[in-house]
């Protein structure tokens, strides 16, 4: 039950942020001091999601190819993301490499 309340709370909060300036009738622009931090939300949040997920193995930092194949697979996938800018390609390469390393290990 409380999980449902959390989802509804996030939904309402997200809608409120999407509506915010559109809902206010004026054309008041967003002040620069508020705009500046928002520019860094994407890189900061995404890195905070990715880094622990690919460097931790059973709660400890491990970046060896066989101890934690996810790190190497993610590093190569990052190169693909940089060169190809294609989400599907990143997933195919990353998953493929993880499976290959798991098969060796």
């Amino acid at each position, binding site marked *: 039950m409380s999980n449902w309340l959390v989802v509804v709370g996030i939904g309402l909060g997200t809608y409120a942020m999407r*509506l915010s300036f559109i809902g206010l009738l004026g054309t008041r622009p967003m002040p620069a001091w508020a705009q500046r931090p928002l520019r860094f939300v994407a890189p900061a949040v995404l*890195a905070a999601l990715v880094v622990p997920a690919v460097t931790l193995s059973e709660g400890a930092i491990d970046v060896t190819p066989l101890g934690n194949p996810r790190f190497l697979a993610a590093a190569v996938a990052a190169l693909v993301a940089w060169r190809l800018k294609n989400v599907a390609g990143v997933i195919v390469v990353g998953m493929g490499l993880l499976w290959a390393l798991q098969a060796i290990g």
Partner: protein
Amino acid sequence: MSPRSALFDGMRSVLPLLIGVVPFGLIFGVTAAGSAIGGGLGYASSLIIFAGAAQLATVQLLTAGSAAVVVIATALVINARHLMYSAALAPHFREFPTRWRLALPYILTDQAFAVSISKYDVDTDPDYKRWFFFGGAISLWTTWQVTSVAGVVLGESIPESWSLDFAIPLVFLALLVPALKDRPSVVAAAVGGSVALLAHDVSYDLGLLIGSLMGIAAGVAAERLAS
């Protein structure tokens, strides 16, 4: 220009972006179905929240048993970029009927914002703007709903040995790399990632929030130093 052609223009403009949305939606559904919160609530979040990265983080944190307030705060920080989109779109939406101004924000996404703002001009007809946005945004919304349901259905038959949960950081990685546009954003990512990693021992679920906030602060500081 008729509403119909503006609608189709909007739909056409998001077509190439759907290639990225389809695997993301499927993976979200598969992950939700395999997690402690289950496919039902997972899918409901596609309707209620309708923001992929925040939905995935929510599933992850709820499965880890994080406190409700931590989950909500984290998801809202992830979604805070919508404030910026709303501010940028507001002058263009000003002449829309009230009903539209209330309804369109529900289907506002990164992609719908990007295609619309690049299409809008000061003298673009408001009717065109309205139908164009609707066409693009509703295509993205529909694709997200269909693929996340398909993922939930598929998810129940996928064995754990496939390590499909790894697709989640891969999706985030695919979004992260193009967000590293300049030096301050690289600093934001480096600090966000390392703080989240170092903080995982304290508490994994708070680490995400603390890392994000420190990363944002570091980006602002780096930008100020550079100017």
